[in-house]
């Protein structure tokens, strides 16, 4: 059985000030129905750009190569009605800031029923009944009242649930969730994630989950892809990510995060700052910040290679370093390069 979504060798260049800049480099993964894949990375990692490529929301003038296949059809070749159908029926997107994606002067009810009434030609009464059902699905039980409210009358968490309800209206097969809980409080994040997980189970939807939070990805995704400077650096089962990272960047990222359980004298910070693909020198993009980098790492961009069963890494020393990546550095590397 072929995957629901298949991304293969995706590269994207954007025109900036008259020249093309690479923002995505050779991204490949596949996603089955019912599966959740996490895309984790910092600024410039290309995680959001990957999602935008799939939704065909790239800025004008973007140059794309590689392929994106959804249910056997090439997404990059969709035009006109086919593209509209893909966006409105097959895929739903949940954004970081729900407020920016709702019209402040339109009621929640209008927002939820518009698609049904326009696309499905469902009568108003019927559409509202269904909207109330959808709200109940995301844990909002006073739906009739909410339909008459405006976005500003709802808290961020509640509004995000409305967005999820709206995306369910068409029963999409793929959800693109771009940092859907980043702007929410932790307790609200927990509720929203619970709703997403339950709905996904019930509807059998696939989800591409974008986040900067490695812990969150590990907790809610089946598999996790770690991205850096527009390229994938690691891909493996989320359950093993924390104990057995395959790329120095993932390991360094985990170590740099403070822990609730203990205070350390000094956080093992990663020197320098995250870069975008077009700013990186030849060779491994992470090499300038990597405590394991050797001369050979700076010579050529390492390939994204299989390390084990369902395990991939873009580090040329991946196998050699396996198991040692989480060992604390003896000298704080940060002092040298800061």
């Amino acid at each position: 059985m072929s995957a629901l979504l298949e991304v293969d060798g995706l590269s994207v260049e954007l025109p900036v000030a008259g020249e093309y800049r690479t923002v995505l480099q050779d991204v490949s993964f596949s996603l089955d129905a019912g599966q959740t894949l996490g895309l984790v990375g910092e600024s410039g990692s290309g995680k959001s750009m990957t999602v935008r490529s799939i939704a065909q929301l790239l800025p004008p003038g973007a140059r794309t190569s590689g392929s994106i296949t959804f249910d056997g059809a090439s997404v990059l070749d969709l035009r006109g009605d086919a593209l509209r159908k893909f966006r409105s029926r097959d895929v739903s997107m949940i954004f970081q800031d729900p407020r920016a994606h709702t019209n402040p002067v339109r009621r929640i009810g209008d927002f939820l029923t518009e698609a049904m009434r326009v696309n499905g030609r469902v009568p108003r009464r019927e559409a509202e009944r269904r909207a109330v059902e959808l709200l109940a699905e995301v844990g909002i039980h006073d739906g009739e009242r909410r339909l008459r409210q405006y976005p500003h009358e709802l808290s961020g968490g509640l509004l995000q649930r409305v967005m999820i309800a709206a995306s369910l209206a068409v029963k999409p097969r793929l959800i693109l969730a771009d940092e859907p809980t980043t702007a929410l409080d932790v307790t609200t994040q927990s509720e929203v994630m619970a709703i997403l997980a339950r709905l996904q189970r019930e509807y059998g939807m696939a989800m591409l989950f974008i986040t900067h939070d490695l812990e969150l990805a590990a907790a809610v995704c089946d598999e996790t892809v770690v991205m850096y400077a527009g390229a994938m650096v690691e891909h493996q089962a989320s359950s093993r990510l924390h104990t057995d990272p395959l790329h120095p960047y993932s390991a360094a990222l985990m170590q740099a995060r403070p822990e609730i359980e203990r205070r350390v004298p000094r956080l093992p910070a990663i020197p320098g700052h995250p870069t975008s693909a077009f700013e990186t020198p030849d060779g491994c993009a992470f090499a300038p910040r990597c405590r394991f980098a050797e001369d050979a790492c700076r010579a050529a961009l390492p390939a994204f290679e299989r390390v084990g069963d369902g395990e991939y890494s873009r580090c040329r020393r991946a196998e050699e370093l396996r198991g040692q990546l989480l060992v604390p550095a003896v000298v704080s590397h940060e002092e040298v390069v800061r």
Partner: protein
Amino acid sequence: MSSTAGRRADARTDSERTTAAPGGVPILAVDGLRKTFGRGRKEAVAVDGVSFELAAGGSLGIVGESGSGKTTTARMLIGLEQPTAGRIVLDGADHTRPARRIRDLRARGRLIQIVFQDPYTSLDRRQKIGDCLGEVVRLHFGLSGSALDARVRELGELVGLHDRQLRALPRELSGGQRQRVAIARALAAEPKILILDEAVSALDVSIQAQILNLLADIREQRGVSYVFISHDLAVIRQITDTAIVMRHGRVVEQGQTADVLDSPQDPYTRLLRDSVPHAGWRPGADALVTS
């Protein structure tokens, strides 16, 4: 330098639940702080009966979610809001009411400073970094010429900024570098207390660690006291000695940071702790406190 955060072995009783540092004279004392907005039926209580103390050289965390009143508390501390009731004592003097006269405003500025969350809007986008720091140094200490330049360079070095970055505009710097500028600008007034209002929340994880280390160094070198406001419990653990947990404008729990996080007494603190994603986490499994 982490010794102060070591977990206390002794069991805690309610009467011991105080953030007062042993023996030290508090550099900041807040008593019964209250802030309401609006009047009559529309009155909303943002902060209600908040009391805490911060020892000189100490670091106090204020934990809370949106609407907890933590930012309003910060704004009252720096004099951007006037408390409806209660008392704010900074370095032994009453500073409950915001200063009116420019001389008093500057004096308060040399006592307490703030770093905000968003490094992009925290700096004037048309002002070069060096000018931004220089403006504040001149304001407080009247330096000019080479003395001013030297002081600006010194401030830059303190936060890890080079000459090249001092000549740059904010848009040429990364988020982490801008936050370093905001910290340097706050320190330019040589304050005794620094409020960090979600100051590392908008930063990438790898940069967040750099800034947290920088803040620890500065506290050690300069003896500046911190009020660190954050929703991030792990960050609070790393950077503070004592902590208060706020919800709906009230303090629900306070004590040594290690105690508050390791054995939370209040159900809300427990919920906060359990809501943080961790290995084996089941989202929403905790008792739902729906808004």
